[in-house]
């Protein structure tokens, strides 16, 4: 039985806008990632997946605020810790983050090595600059990055190189959990492949124990992660093993989202790209009932008023709908038949 590296219980966070309005971006999200596993989080832009990534770090700064719930990283419950203790003992060591736009993730006026020094000295008081350099050089070489990069400014690196440098810096302290927020979406295809290869290598080499990978590019997710979670309007709507999630979704939203997936090697080229009509609800005032109700093909009057919770469907599958699994599958089969 592998250890649970990251466990999140009923985590809620919100944004407070400059007009003092609350935006409930993450609503009672629970998840668990075991050692050696990777979890993908998918959803439309604005569904709260990037906010979830930020929230999982357990270190909040405006406009994002913690509301309730617990985050347990490698057995340590960090929700009750002081922010400064989280910063010193958790960030970078237990959990690390790769930002969405790594292009600008590095301070443009600081050499890579100097930033690495800043990071390590923040956590290890006795580290010397010489040691740090040796360590960084070794790590970079292990990850297939030239050591000269250390002496450069970010502006001198190409986009793909910058992203890989950021990843290398993120795993400098060998964190247990790595959260990658769309790490490859801004890159060209070659660089994308290198980044994905690098992330896989990190898992295989045991430099990180678990990973959460966030993206809106579903084919990518299918190839990279073990499990997939679909988010909609700040909530999890469905979760399960990636193959089942992609080829056999239960929730109408997942179904719609997966309808847009193209997996060429599976011969699914002819699957039509279907955009789901409508827009997500306003999270300043989340709807009382099912959040997807307004866009759902199978909506019923009670959907609009009933608060729907996640239903278990065996094998770690869970989905958020008042209709039973069987009924939904029947409906999908009927649609398929009509075509």
């Amino acid at each position: 039985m592998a250890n649970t590296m990251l466990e999140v219980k009923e985590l809620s966070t919100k944004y407070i806008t400059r007009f003092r309005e609350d935006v409930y971006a993450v609503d009672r999200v629970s998840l668990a990632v075991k050692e050696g596993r990777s979890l993908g989080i998918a959803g439309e832009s604005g569904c709260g997946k990037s906010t979830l990534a930020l929230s999982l770090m357990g270190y909040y700064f405006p406009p994002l605020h913690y509301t309730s719930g617990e985050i347990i990283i490698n057995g340590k419950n960090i929700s009750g810790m002081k922010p400064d203790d989280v910063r010193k003992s958790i960030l970078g060591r237990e959990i690390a983050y790769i930002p969405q736009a790594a292009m600008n993730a590095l301070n443009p006026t600081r050499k890579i090595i100097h930033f690495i020094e800043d990071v390590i000295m923040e956590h290890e008081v006795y580290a010397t600059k010489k040691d740090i350099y040796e360590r960084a050089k070794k790590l970079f070489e292990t990850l297939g990055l030239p050591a000269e990069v250390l002496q450069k400014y970010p502006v001198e690196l190409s986009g793909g190189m910058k992203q890989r440098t950021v990843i290398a810096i993120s795993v400098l302290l060998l964190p247990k959990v790595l959260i990658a927020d769309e790490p490859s979406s801004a890159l060209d295809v070659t660089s994308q492949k290198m980044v994905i290869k690098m992330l896989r290598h990190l898992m295989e080499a045991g430099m990180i124990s678990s990973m959460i990978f966030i993206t809106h590019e579903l084919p990518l997710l299918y190839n990279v992660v073990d499990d997939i979670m679909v988010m909609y309007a700040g909530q999890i709507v469905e979760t399960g093993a990636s193959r089942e999630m992609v080829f056999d979704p239960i929730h109408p939203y997942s179904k719609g989202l997966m309808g847009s997936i193209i997996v060429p090697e599976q011969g699914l080229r002819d699957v039509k790209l279907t955009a789901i009509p409508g827009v997500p609800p306003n999270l300043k005032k989340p709807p009382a009932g099912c959040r997807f109700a307004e866009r759902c093909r199978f909506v019923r009057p009670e959907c609009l008023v009933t608060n729907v919770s996640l239903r278990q469907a065996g094998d770690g599958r869970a989905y958020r709908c008042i209709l039973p699994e069987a009924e939904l599958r029947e409906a999908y089969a009927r649609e398929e038949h009509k075509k």
Partner: protein
Amino acid sequence: MKGYLRYFLNKLGWFAITFVFAFLLNFILPRLMPGDPVAAIVARFAQGMSNSTGVQAIYEQYVELFGTNKPMWEQFVIYLQNVAKGDFGFSFSQYPRTVADVLKASLWWTIALQFPAIIVGWLIGNTLGALAAYLKGGFDKVLMPLSIFVSNFPPFGMAVIFMVVFGVNLKWFPTSGGYGFDLIPSFSWQFIQSVIIHYQMPFWSIVIIAIGGQAIGMRSMAIYELNADYVKYSRFMGIKDSKIVGYVFRNAMLPQITGLALSIGTMVGGALVAEIVFSYPGLGTTLLRAVLGQDYPLISASTLIITVMVLFANFIIEILYGFIDPRIKAVQAD
């Protein structure tokens, strides 16, 4: 170092080109006007002058000096030679003083006033703007509208208000001049004291205007930087806030330095007018006298000197910037 040298040479070349161009403009613009400029100007000037031999002397000297009856290119060569010798001819309005003599006196006053005032205003303004971006809240809410107002206030208006409040009403500082009118410039304690007292109002009125504009610029830059991705990433790597603030302000500062280079011309223009309000014995006041006295050679030489000053300041800032922003050396080295 190789990278920096390249940057330096590049800037030096650019500085030289701009200088040549500014020099040409200074020569050509007045000559684009129809007619014999020297004759017209001397004639206009002569209307108010009773000493007709003086007028005649000036006229002859100028025709001789500028060769206005010769072709344009020859005039240009003569102009070049005169400038190289530092000989701008006689001043019309302050005859028999030469233009070089008049300017030599006022140039140092202007440099001593404007250079420190602009630097001090820049420093204070950037500090305030950075604080406003970082502290936000009440400090920001008070400082920003105030800065917007001050920076939009005409420079001469600020000078007039300073003068009326602190000079005429409160009588804290003298209202005009660079030193007491009963004193002769010397290195006596009394003279220096008088200079310091006369210095305050022009100095602070220029500083205040500079503060406003710089504070606004620095605030936007700092807010922009505070929202930059590297701030978030650095935080998530566990770096403490004080260090991140250090990153942010250093980075926000850099565009402010180039901003200073670009706006220094406008600032000097405003400060020259402020000099006029206080009758400060610098280039601004000299320029006003030259205009009032239709003193063409003095105007031409003043504008040339002001341009050179601004160009030079610009050049110095760019050179310093190359030292401060590490990216320049790095990128140029490739």
